[in-house]
């Protein structure tokens, strides 16, 4: 009996081994075969800011499909970072997709992105700062699909109601503090922002600090400038004239502004699209962020159109991306949901066409781009977590933790 048992077990094991050995789809060993047929089917994954953006991208993709004879399916990701990471590991990525600048380094480092920058003849039309954000190993990997900066958006009605005029638009930290306090009344909070480094970071920049040095080789998180910025934000939080969006039951600053819960918010130009779609009746004005002790400062964000290394339709995908990043299409997107074009030529046209978005367009000149070191997003996630507790936390300790957490990532990241 024990003998038989052993044999049976052995047979089972052998069967399992055979099954295991028979196929392996970890495809990086072999080259992905390219589809060269006339009619190809492409899948595109985007992270949409709302129905307007989804519709604009779908329409553009459909137009390209009609023109090229291919077909395209556009999917909207609910959590694009997680869905992309999983699809890269599973070697079943969509053909083209949005890549967030904070994730770019991870994907490029892992070889998941197909670098197509050398196939773009007029790549110079994209600003140097944007191109730098999406360059890995000296190669431009993907094209920035748009650009965004932060500005201060003000609810006109609430502003007037508080007896303020255009002259009172804050230009310094001290003025911001005064008007925020004055606007805070009842259900209205003077300033509502998202409690994350992508907003609070602007204050660090205005104080003359930033998370890393310019070439991202050293952490500079625990500088006195950064401490000063966080102290300032904390003082606003403690006074109640600044609240985080989730404290007033909203998902983001635009929602707070639209629901009249916030008199001011700090948001990017995507705000125009969101407000048009959800709160078309709410009037607001965008002004540059007030300057801090070290002058003006704001943050820039961008996403690029990634093409998957594992895609079987790279050529077609690059062609689609070219179509989607043309000046015409960028202006269409701007019209539809208010994003700013990433092409310098189109940006000028945009600034002319939309004077109300001047504050955002102008800010591209001095905006700080994101940290693009692979493995760094985990550090920033933790920083965001700590910033959420800023009201009761110790700014020095938060920054010291950031410094400590970031150092290993910088040394191993690149």
């Amino acid at each position, binding site marked *: *009996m024990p003998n*038989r*048992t052993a*044999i*049976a*077990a052995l047979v089972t094991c052998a069967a399992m081994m055979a*099954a*295991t050995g028979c*196929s*392996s*789809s*970890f495809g990086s060993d072999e080259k992905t075969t390219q589809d060269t047929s006339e009619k190809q089917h492409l*899948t595109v994954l985007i*992270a*949409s*800011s*709302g*129905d307007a*953006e*989804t*519709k604009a991208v779908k329409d553009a993709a459909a137009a390209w499909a009609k023109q090229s004879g291919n077909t395209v399916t556009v*999917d*909207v*990701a*609910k*959590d694009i970072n997680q*869905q992309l990471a*999983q*699809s890269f*590991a*599973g*070697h*079943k990525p*969509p053909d083209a997709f949005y890549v967030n600048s904070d994730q770019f380094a991870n994907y490029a480092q892992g070889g998941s992105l197909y670098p197509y920058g050398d196939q773009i003849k007029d790549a110079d039309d994209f600003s140097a700062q944007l191109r730098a954000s999406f360059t890995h190993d000296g190669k431009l990997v993907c094209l920035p699909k748009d650009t965004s900066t932060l500005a201060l958006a003000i609810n006109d009605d609430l502003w007037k109601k508080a007896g303020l005029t255009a002259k009172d638009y804050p230009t310094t930290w001290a003025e911001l503090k005064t008007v925020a306090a004055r606007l805070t009344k009842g259900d209205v909070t003077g300033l509502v922002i998202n409690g994350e480094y992508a907003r609070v970071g602007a204050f660090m920049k205005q104080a003359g600090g930033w998370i890393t040095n310019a070439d991202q080789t050293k952490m500079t998180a625990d500088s006195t400038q950064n401490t000063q910025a966080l102290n300032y934000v904390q003082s606003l939080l403690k006074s109640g004239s600044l609240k985080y969006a989730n404290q007033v039951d909203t*998902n*983001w600053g635009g*929602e707070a502004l639209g629901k009249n819960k916030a008199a001011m918010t700090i948001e990017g130009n995507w705000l125009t699209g*969101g407000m048009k*779609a*959800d709160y078309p009746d709410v009037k607001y004005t965008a002004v540059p962020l007030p300057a801090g002790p070290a002058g003006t400062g704001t943050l820039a964000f961008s996403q690029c159109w990634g093409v998957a290394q594992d895609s079987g339709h790279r050529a077609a995908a690059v062609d689609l991306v070219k179509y989607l990043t043309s000046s015409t299409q960028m202006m269409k997107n701007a019209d539809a949901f208010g994003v700013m074009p990433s092409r310098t030529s189109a940006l000028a046209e945009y600034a002319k066409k939309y004077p109300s978005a001047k504050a955002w367009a102008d800010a591209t000149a001095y905006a700080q781009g994101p940290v693009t070191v692979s493995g760094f997003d985990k550090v920033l996630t933790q920083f965001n977590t700590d910033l959420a507790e800023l009201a009761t936390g110790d700014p020095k300790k938060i920054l010291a933790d950031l410094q400590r957490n970031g150092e290993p990532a910088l040394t191993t990241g690149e």
Partner: protein
Amino acid sequence: MSAKSAAARAQGRHVLGRFPLSLRVLGYATVAALGLLYIVPFVIQLVTAFKTDPDAAAHPLGLIPTTPTTAAYQRLFGLSQDGDGVPFLRWLGNSAFVAVLVTAGRVLFDSMAGYALARLRFPGRTLLFGFVLAVMAVPMVALLIPRFLVLNTFGLFDTYTGMILPLMVDAAGIFIMKQFFESIPREVEEAARVDGAGVFRTFWSIVLPMARPALLTLTILSFQGSWNEFTHFLVATQSSQYETLTTGLARLVSGGLGGGTQYPLKLAAALLATLPVAALFFCFQRYFVQGANAGAVKE
């Protein structure tokens, strides 16, 4: 009152008599409140699904929508042009497809394995039963990454096969079936065998028909389990074309900004996702109860 309780005692019922009236009223009130605690969330869900977004935000408790609307349902069923991103019918189709196949697989394979473990003598049986018991202890949450790895290796990631095949056998189901088959008198099978029926025929035409109550329990629990399955589908798929009600809804709810909170939409989707299992539950509650008491498979 006392006469009543005396009568009750004489009948051997209500031996402890009844509570005094005041206590009884209090007791009923408490019990009713407790019952409400379990029902009200579903009622609120039902009502809110017919509200507009602002109405849902302003009157979260209002039991009558101020401006009733079926906008959420129209959007779910693709009747409105108001954008998309919620391919509800696809979720529903995927959930139904996967649940049906998984259920069929579980009922067949679990009863086969259960029968073999209960009745057939073969080398390694004890070992295998020990294996089943060990497998029952392995929590699904610890299998997230392992399952992903193996599906990936076999090229089953992001396929229906990868979603269905790993769920087709479950140790607890085998256990239930084994317990049940052991409770069937052997004489029936012996008679069949004396009449010349082989192992498979005995199993298929004698034993299985006798196992109908257990099979029904297994069917219902399997369907409920695979309909509500979330973690496996989360790691087994990536594309939206394979989203089920659970993964689709989870991503809709946990994800993103834009378009406000959309609670009526989310709650309507959650409601529709609950309905099939709820219908089963109210028709076959007995079997759910048996499931909760796992081994209690009656003849």
